[in-house]
């Protein structure tokens, strides 16, 4: 016979106002198996907890039910108290007579009856509870960082500086990401390359960082502390160990007129190329689609001129498997492209801005390349169509953003600031040029941000026009901008030489596919979801995976770096333990009854169920049964509900417990 203790809480008056707590305690005492019951003003208070501990010892209780608030509130509190008095914490449960009873019912009689029922049900559950021990899993103290932009670089450096190994995987031939493309950065206007390249070099030289560029994540298995990651290293056609980065191949390559993606297709590159001079690693890659050798088999110039013989036309993709304990996802963003009619984009077209058919209508990132000292124009602002210096430049904000029906509903966050920066850069380079900005709101929260914007208006003479642009069209070598100034209430027309669109920040292409590989969730715009918008902004709901930078939502550099360091701190915290403890609510297979149908394996969302062969002493196969990996099991219990022979059971929610509760109805 069990010896259960029932403790009914008044919660001040929160419960006792509508529930007759004394009666509930009195009725509980009559329940079979209840050895002790009482009521108390505040069970969660120190004296309340002491009361519980004392009763445990004095009455030799083997189970505890606290009828009080929601277990989501205080289950931990009471389990801890029970544990300190020597009871297994999983033998302590709570009956929710506040949120589910006293607060939602007015009728005292009915509420009291319901509270008694709740106690009766829960007592049945406690009676059949099992003592459980927390599960421990080992931690592999290596981290995987996906994405080599500023977010990935920062996270990798922070983790590596803490003495942990890091695998950094980057899809492009060089790390650096978008930040490497920028000219100068707000709000201080320091040159992006100048602050970025030292960090890139640090990554390359760090003894704790293994860098895989031109590589992608193929597969992710395992769970927190124990991931196995398969990485596809795309064939570079250049052997990294042999290449010295001398650059002869790129200069001798006969095919030189390929638009350079890094320069937003404004500049040209060869078929064998490094995307930009400061690239890390400084190892070229052959663009096979544009290489004559790969297309027609006739050329081979690069191989001939390469002194160290690093060119390998036969190179194949290779797969590398790495074991890591934590993953930082830092895959960044892309800008909504204005180049073509969008097909599978949530943005339903901006044909009024020309669909990319007007050469002097460019996006913000292209303007960055124009303004960059290392860009295709050497830092001169020249319009793409005729290479002339534009006298009047119109900037249009919120292209795609904040357009719930036609584009995306969110604010892209960085455009107000970078547009203000663009007007300044333009004014610094073209002193008598005039910048106009069409905007809906100037959103500049951030340290020194509003001051920066006002400087653009008040000192650098940018004319800000509150209103949007209806249409752009070409006339006599100019772009006619049809806009409005809602502050005055008039239509505005400007003949611009160059138009720069602040297009929406979107999730990277393939962000959803990567999320599926990682088992993390994402929103309808494919931005990755954090576990809690406020209190867990870096963690994914999937344990052991963390987010950094714009892959989680539009972010500027300071925010990105902060989040990257936060993700790194989370990883380092995880790595500070040798073993991870986790809730023991997991499924267990009763091998005696299991017939090995493996229905459970099919339904398990975690892939926690494996086949297990049972052999006799001679090694003959007796039968195949299911086996649950406790480290992977999430504890949902779907297997148990599915199992036809009822031979898998979820600790804490056994059929016996639930049936007993139903019987007690």
């Amino acid at each position, binding site marked *: 016979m069990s010896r259960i203790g029932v403790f009914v809480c008044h919660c001040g008056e929160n419960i006792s106002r509508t529930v007759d707590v004394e009666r509930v305690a009195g009725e509980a005492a009559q329940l079979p198996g209840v050895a002790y019951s009482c009521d108390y003003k505040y069970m969660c208070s120190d004296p309340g907890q002491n009361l519980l501990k004392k009763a445990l010892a004095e009455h030799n209780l083997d189970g505890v039910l606290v009828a009080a608030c929601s277990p989501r509130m205080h289950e931990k509190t009471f389990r801890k108290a029970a544990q300190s008095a020597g009871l297994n914490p999983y033998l302590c449960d709570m009956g929710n007579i506040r949120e589910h009873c006293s607060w939602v019912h007015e009728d005292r009689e009915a509420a009291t009856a319901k509270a008694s029922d709740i106690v009766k049900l829960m007592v049945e559950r406690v009676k059949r509870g099992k003592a459980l021990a927390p599960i421990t899993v080992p931690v592999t103290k290596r981290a995987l960082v996906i994405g080599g932009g500023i977010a990935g670089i920062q996270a990798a450096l922070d983790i590596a500086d803490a003495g942990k190994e890091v695998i950094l995987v980057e899809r492009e031939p060089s790390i650096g990401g978008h930040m490497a493309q920028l000219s100068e950065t707000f709000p201080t206007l320091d040159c992006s390359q100048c602050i970025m390249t030292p960090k890139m070099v640090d990554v390359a030289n760090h003894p704790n960082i293994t860098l895989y560029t031109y590589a992608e994540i193929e597969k992710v298995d395992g769970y927190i502390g124990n991931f196995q990651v398969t990485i596809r290293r795309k064939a570079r056609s250049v052997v990294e160990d042999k290449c010295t980065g001398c650059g002869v191949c790129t200069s001798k390559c006969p095919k030189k007129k390929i638009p350079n993606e890094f320069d937003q297709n404004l500049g040209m590159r060869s078929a064998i190329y490094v995307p930009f001079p400061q690239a890390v690693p400084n190892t070229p890659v052959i663009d096979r689609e544009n290489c004559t050798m790969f297309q027609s088999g006739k050329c081979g110039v690069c191989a001939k001129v390469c002194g160290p013989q690093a060119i390998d036309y036969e190179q194949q993709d290779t797969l590398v498997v790495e074991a890591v304990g934590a993953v930082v996802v830092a895959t960044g963003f892309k800008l909504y492209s204005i180049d073509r009619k969008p097909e599978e984009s949530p943005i339903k077209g901006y044909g009024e801005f020309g669909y990319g058919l007007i050469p002097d209508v460019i996006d913000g990132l292209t303007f960055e390349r124009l303004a960059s000292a290392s860009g295709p124009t050497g830092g001169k602002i020249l319009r793409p169509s005729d290479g002339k210096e534009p*006298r*009047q430049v119109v900037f249009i904000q919120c292209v795609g953003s904040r357009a719930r029906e036609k584009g995306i509903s969110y604010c892209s966050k960085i455009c107000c600031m970078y547009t203000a920066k663009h007007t300044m850069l333009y004014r610094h380079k073209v002193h*008598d040029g*005039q910048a*106009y900005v069409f905007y809906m709101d100037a959103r500049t929260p951030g340290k020194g941000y509003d001051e920066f914007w*006002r400087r653009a*208006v*008040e000192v650098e*003479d940018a*004319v800000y*026009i*509150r209103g949007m642009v209806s249409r752009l069209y070409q006339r006599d070598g100019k772009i006619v901008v049809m806009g409005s*100034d809602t*502050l*005055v*209430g*008039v*239509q*505005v*027309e*400007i*003949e611009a030489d160059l138009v720069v669109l602040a297009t929406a920040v979107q999730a990277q292409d393939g962000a959803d596919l990567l999320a599926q590989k990682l088992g993390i969730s994402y929103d309808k715009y494919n931005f990755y979801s954090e576990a809690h918008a406020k209190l867990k902004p870096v963690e994914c709901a999937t344990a052991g995976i963390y987010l950094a930078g714009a892959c989680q939502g539009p972010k500027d550099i300071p925010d990105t770096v902060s989040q990257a360091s936060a993700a790194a701190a989370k990883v380092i915290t995880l790595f500070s333990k040798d073993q991870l403890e986790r809730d023991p609510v997991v499924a267990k297979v009763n091998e005696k009854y299991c017939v090995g149908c493996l229905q459970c394996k099919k339904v398990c969302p975690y892939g926690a169920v494996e086949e297990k062969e049972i052999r006799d002493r001679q090694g003959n196969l007796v039968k195949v049964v299911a086996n649950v990996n406790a480290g992977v099991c999430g504890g949902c219990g779907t297997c148990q509900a599915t199992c036809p022979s009822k031979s898998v059971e979820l600790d804490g929610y056994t059929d016996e417990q639930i049936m007993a509760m139903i019987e007690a109805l």
Partner: protein
Amino acid sequence: MKNKLMHLSNETINLDFVNKVEKLSGSSVRRCMQCGKCSAGCPMATFMEHPPNRIVRLLQLGQGKRILAGRSIWYCASCETCTTRCPNTVNLAAIMDALRKLSWDADGPSKESYVQLANRLFIENIRTYGRQYEMRLGAVFNLRSGRLLKDFLLGPKLISRGKLKVFHQKNRNLDEIEAIFSRIEEMRKKGEAL
């Protein structure tokens, strides 16, 4: 004019005008963020086609012509509420003064003839008599504005209470007054003052 399409270019943005306004008023127009607080508190805003904030907005866009084409600036009562409350210390009252001055100099495409007439008579009186001569001010105003019967009944009441003096006040400094007026005119002619 008010709703006419606005072409913006280096040619149509009259920064010269804006600079004059900024110089005369000693206040920046660019500092304005268009929060609208000036218009919110303006006792005269309901009488204006361009409320105060829009006047500043038009200045920011170098559209002095549009401002002077309307009469809004002549409805400003110089109560200084806008200036007092502006979160960015745009001295709108001074900007209004400057705009009226520029309109006055251009011999007023801004047509609030009654207000202008009253101002003109007031200043004329100072030049002639050194002090205000309310009887003449009222009488000439009514005569010139063609509103002969305006405040017709008030006159006798005021005269009987000694509030309206039939004769002007005496002043021995009349030459000095005239000298000040003509020196200012001289300075302007020479371009020494705006």
